[in-house]
């Protein structure tokens, strides 16, 4: 198809004449150009890495995306290792207390981090059978729902009774049939406290556990000595009064001392009985609660990797967005300036050609 047919058939004659009379290069020009043709064209610079601008932009963009994905992946994989802190918490076990100290030994174990399993007998403080020790334990457990709360409460009470203890108090409350809580104060024979704790921790997820032991052996021994002393004194007073040769003033004085010693002996006995009883029965405060909201399952390593990678990507997107916000207007102005410059140059060339 002739180029003219694309425009108009009327110009065929004109076109034929123009083509037939096209100017030809002179011999002199032909020789000049022939000299160029004999020369070696300038070679491509070896060090020059020339890539068309559009392809270079695509390649750079692809590299940037690849790099950001790689960084996100590496960071995600690296960051998904369980932290040292988490390992310590999960593996944390109660240490055995020194039984020599007379002071309280308190071991808070978990604060809001669920234990992966119920406590073994070795996990909590172990009272010594040969010494008098006060044992206080506080347990906060989370159960699944209100039904589980009720079952756990009943189970704790039965368990306590089964181990020879008793339930000192129970507070149980539910709200709107979906949430609830119970607080039980349990007294369990100290010989069975480990069994009790092991069983109780299995009814729910441990949110908090605190155990305290107060060694009262010396105090009991001191009170025993005081008792012995008082009993001996009382016996001596009785013996002296029974002799019959005691003057009236002395008798009255001895009788007053005997009354005082009896009262002190009674009080001391009661006190010691309380001490022994408190050392015989451990006190366990058990708090059961339902979750306030659906607890999220612990994320797997894959999920954590994805989360970390996602976080890195989000951060990169944030930086990119920030760069775009800052540089965008400048780039837009630059782009517009280049486009306007090109258009002006084209118009200027066109005007120049129209004038020529």
């Amino acid at each position, binding site marked *: 198809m*002739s*180029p*003219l047919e*694309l*425009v*108009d058939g*009327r*110009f065929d004659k*004109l*076109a034929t*004449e*123009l*083509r*037939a*009379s*096209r*100017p*030809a*290069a*002179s011999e*002199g*020009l*032909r020789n*000049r*150009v*022939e000299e*160029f*043709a*004999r*020369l*070696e*064209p*300038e*070679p*491509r610079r070896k060090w020059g890495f*020339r890539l068309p601008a559009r392809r270079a932009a695509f390649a750079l963009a692809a590299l940037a995306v690849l790099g950001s994905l790689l960084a996100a992946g590496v960071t995600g994989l690296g960051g998904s290792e369980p932290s040292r802190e988490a390992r310590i918490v999960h593996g944390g076990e109660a240490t055995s207390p020194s039984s020599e100290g007379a002071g309280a030994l308190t071991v808070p174990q978990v604060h809001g981090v669920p234990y992966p399993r119920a406590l073994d007998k070795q996990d909590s403080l172990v009272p010594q059978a040969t010494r008098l020790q006060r044992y206080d334990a506080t347990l906060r457990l989370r159960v699944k729902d209100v039904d589980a709360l009720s079952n756990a409460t009943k189970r704790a009470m039965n368990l306590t009774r089964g181990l020879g203890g008793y339930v000192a108090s129970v507070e149980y409350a539910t709200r709107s049939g979906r949430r609830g809580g119970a607080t039980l104060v349990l007294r369990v024979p100290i010989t069975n406290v480990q069994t009790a704790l092991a069983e109780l921790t299995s009814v729910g997820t441990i949110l908090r556990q605190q155990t305290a032991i107060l060694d009262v052996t010396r105090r009991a021994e001191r009170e025993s000595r005081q008792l012995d002393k008082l009993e001996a004194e009382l016996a001596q007073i009785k013996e002296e009064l029974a002799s019959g040769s005691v003057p009236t003033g002395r008798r009255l004085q001895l009788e007053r001392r005997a009354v005082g010693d009896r009262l002190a002996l009674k009080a001391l006995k009661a006190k010691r009985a309380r001490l022994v009883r408190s050392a015989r029965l451990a006190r366990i405060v058990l708090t059961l609660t339902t979750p306030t909201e659906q607890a999220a399952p612990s994320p797997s390593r894959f999920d954590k990797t994805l989360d970390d990678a996602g976080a890195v990507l989000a951060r990169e997107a944030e930086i990119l967005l920030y760069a775009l916000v800052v540089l965008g207007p400048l780039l837009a102005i630059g782009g517009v300036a280049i486009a306007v410059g090109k258009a002006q140059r*084209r118009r200027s*060339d*066109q005007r*120049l*050609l*129209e*004038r*020529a």
Partner: protein
Amino acid sequence: MKAKASAEDFAEAARRHLDDVHAFLVYLTGDRAVAEDLTAETFARALERWHRYDPRRGGPRTWLCQLARSAALDHFRAEDRRRRREGRYAVAELRESAEPVFGEGLSPALERALAQLSAAEREVVALRIVLELDGEGAARVLGISTTACSTRLSRALAKLEKEVSAGVAA
């Protein structure tokens, strides 16, 4: 199609398209002497830049015509500056030569009509009619769209025909 142009390709392209480049520049400048100089300048530039030529982006003739147009524009700019500086119109004086410019054997009416056209009009006639480039190639040389190229050609030919008719009548 080869991706890279070799030295042999340049020699071949120079010999094969010399007349095309020269004819295009004659039409563009309306001056044979200037066209000859610009043709030589075009091939000198082509020799320097031959490693940049990518056959995938068009034939060597299109590429050489782009270089020729660029050389001509540089010439026009220089002339424009000179005319402004000197306050006279050298190109107009040259056009008044009695020698045929646009080709041997052209009718005097067509020769005069071509001289009446602007360089912008003559260049599209040269590319599409004389060199018989297709619309896409011509548009690429001119740096415009194919549609704009067709429109420009149609107007240039209509004006040329009108000028020829006016010349014959006179």
